[in-house]
């Protein structure tokens, strides 16, 4: 059982994610957000359990559903929220948006909207740590849909042969967009795919922070010892639609299933119960929730008040080393 401090920090981070996603949904309804947003609500224990097993200088790579990942890793909320509104003060200066909330300062190095795209990025960061003889590790988040991209296998295999310090962390929420995992997986446990590469595969209850944190901590320790990768499959559930605002409820997953998860398997409620049993006081936990919501609202105000980017700025940031072309004086015409 982890320390008191880890408990409250974890609860704080989970609350920040929940409050952040709730605020984003509200902003979408208010018409403040362009593009598509994918909410992590329901998956907070998996996200925070994985992130808290890492050091600040460890790397994570995310997905299209990655508001929660940088928050879980400790990112400031204001630049994230400003990015979602496409503002100049956004963490990516308005260039990335919801699907690319990359925050290098906390080791969040690639929130990729290409399904599976973050997997080689994280595996490469692990290779980099190994070559640099650093003891950093990398953790890549991905969904049950992403494991059907060939690149997942390629990277799992390369991580295995080179004993790279990388954790493959699958948030199996049972669906890829509107397609149930059971219709696209030859066999239902993602973790079993690890055996083909001699990699340990672990299944955990993704709604249970303690279970995720333990499994992730073991995998991280193994990676840091130089013993190679682990594949962790956290069985979880997304409470919202694939995209916020997409109204196809019930067409591909039963309403009762959604209700059952919201009622009985909400990771925040479950973790609160655990914390109360461990002797945390209700008021203390309420205060943590309040503080999380306050920070999020501050971030919303910051984002709304931030200036729009200057369209001319669209032409910057492409190259680290732009090559200036000598100007040719166009013949008068």
């Amino acid at each position, binding site marked *: 059982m982890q320390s008191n401090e880890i408990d409250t920090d974890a609860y704080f981070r989970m609350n920040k994610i929940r409050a952040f996603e709730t605020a984003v949904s509200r902003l979408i309804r208010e018409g403040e957000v362009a593009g598509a947003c994918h909410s992590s609500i329901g998956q907070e224990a998996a996200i925070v359990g994985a992130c808290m097993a890492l050091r600040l200088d460890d790397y994570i790579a995310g997905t299209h559903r990655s508001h929660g990942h940088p928050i879980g890793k400790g990112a400031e909320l204001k630049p994230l929220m400003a990015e979602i509104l496409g503002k100049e003060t956004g963490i990516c200066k308005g260039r990335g948006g919801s699907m690319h909330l990359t925050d290098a300062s906390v080791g969040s190095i690639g929130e990729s909207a290409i399904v599976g795209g973050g997997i080689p990025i994280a595996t490469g960061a692990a290779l980099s740590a190994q070559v640099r003889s650093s003891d950093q590790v990398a953790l890549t988040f991905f969904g049950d849909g992403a494991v059907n991209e060939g690149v997942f296998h390629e990277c799992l295999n390369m991580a295995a042969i080179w004993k790279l310090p990388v954790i493959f962390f699958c948030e199996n929420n049972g669906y890829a*967009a509107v397609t149930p995992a059971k219709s696209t997986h030859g066999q239902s446990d993602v973790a079993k795919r690890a055996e083909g590469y001699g990699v340990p595969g672990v299944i955990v209850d993704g709604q249970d922070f303690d279970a995720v944190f333990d499994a992730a901590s073991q995998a991280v320790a193994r990676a840091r010892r130089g013993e190679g990768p682990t594949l962790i499959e956290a069985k979880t559930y997304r409470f919202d639609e694939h995209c916020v605002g997409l109204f196809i409820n019930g067409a591909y997953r039963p309403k009762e299933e959604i209700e059952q998860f919201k009622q009985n398997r909400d990771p925040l409620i479950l973790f609160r119960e655990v914390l109360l049993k461990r002797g945390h006081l209700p008021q203390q936990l309420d205060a943590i929730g309040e503080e999380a919501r306050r920070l999020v609202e501050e971030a919303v105000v910051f984002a709304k008040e931030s200036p729009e980017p200057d369209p001319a700025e*669209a032409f910057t940031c492409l190259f680290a080393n732009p090559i200036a072309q000598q100007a040719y004086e166009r013949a008068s015409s």
Partner: protein
Amino acid sequence: MSATQLITYLEALGLAQREEMALDESVIIIGEDISLYAAGGAYGDIDAKRIRSAPISECGFAGMAVGAAMTGLRPIVDFTIASFVYLGSDPIINQAAKVRYMTGGQFKVPVTYRASMWHNQANAAQHSDRPYPMFMNVPGLKVVAPATPSDAKGLLKAAIRDDDPVLVFEDNDLWAMREEVPITTDFVTPIGKAAIRREGSDLTIVSVAGCLRFALGAAETLAKEGVSAEVIDLRTLAPLDTYAILTSVAKTGRLIIADYAHRTCGAAAEISAIVAEDGFDTLKRPIIRVTTPDIQIPFSPKMEKPLYPNATSIAAAARRLM
């Protein structure tokens, strides 16, 4: 022309697919998340085995479609967003385009690859690609890019019926565009033929995909200024209708190309090069390309929107030529 119905670009694509599936039982469709539409009746009462809601395995199913096409089917692969085609580019380029040639004509490869270009929707750089130029550079592929609901129906149907691999680049920005579209299931738009959308004598505007709206808008503005612009909607990008382009330029002596792709080595470059070689003596003025500049697509709509060609930028280019 026969009877028509008022439908959107998106409905026209669905209709084309449904009609061809009903007419020819060798037509199948593979893609992600498509079974939901099947449940909604979008495919009529087509046998479920012809509708494959696939895992997220673009390379795999793009290649499987080649094998299926070589052995009697006419698969439609729906990549959904065009930014995902790179994952399937190896089987498209190394197999679909080459199999017939490499085997000395032993096989035909009647496969259709659909990709919707989701630019201008604030989805940032990884969802906004318009990658038709790279496929225009590959011999053995046909490439179409419909700009109207009628051509969305007619070109997708022609692609499905064609015995060679055809890539259909759809313009997501046009999904809601509405038009009277021929009802008959026989209606196809021939591959390889451009359409003259407006006749004119002073200037030719060649337009790619959804740039047509802007080209026509610019032509309207220019008309008020006394400039008569001819507007050519390419419709097919490979093979290009060089005759239509060269004939028009021979008449007007001036050429602007409006192209959604990035500038370098885009479709506009090819058209310009064709005219600079085979129509040079008919040219009175420089050829101007109005394209998306060589920058990635930012998320912020404030930054994104000004990057694409529009009626204002096309008209401004035209004025520089007069």
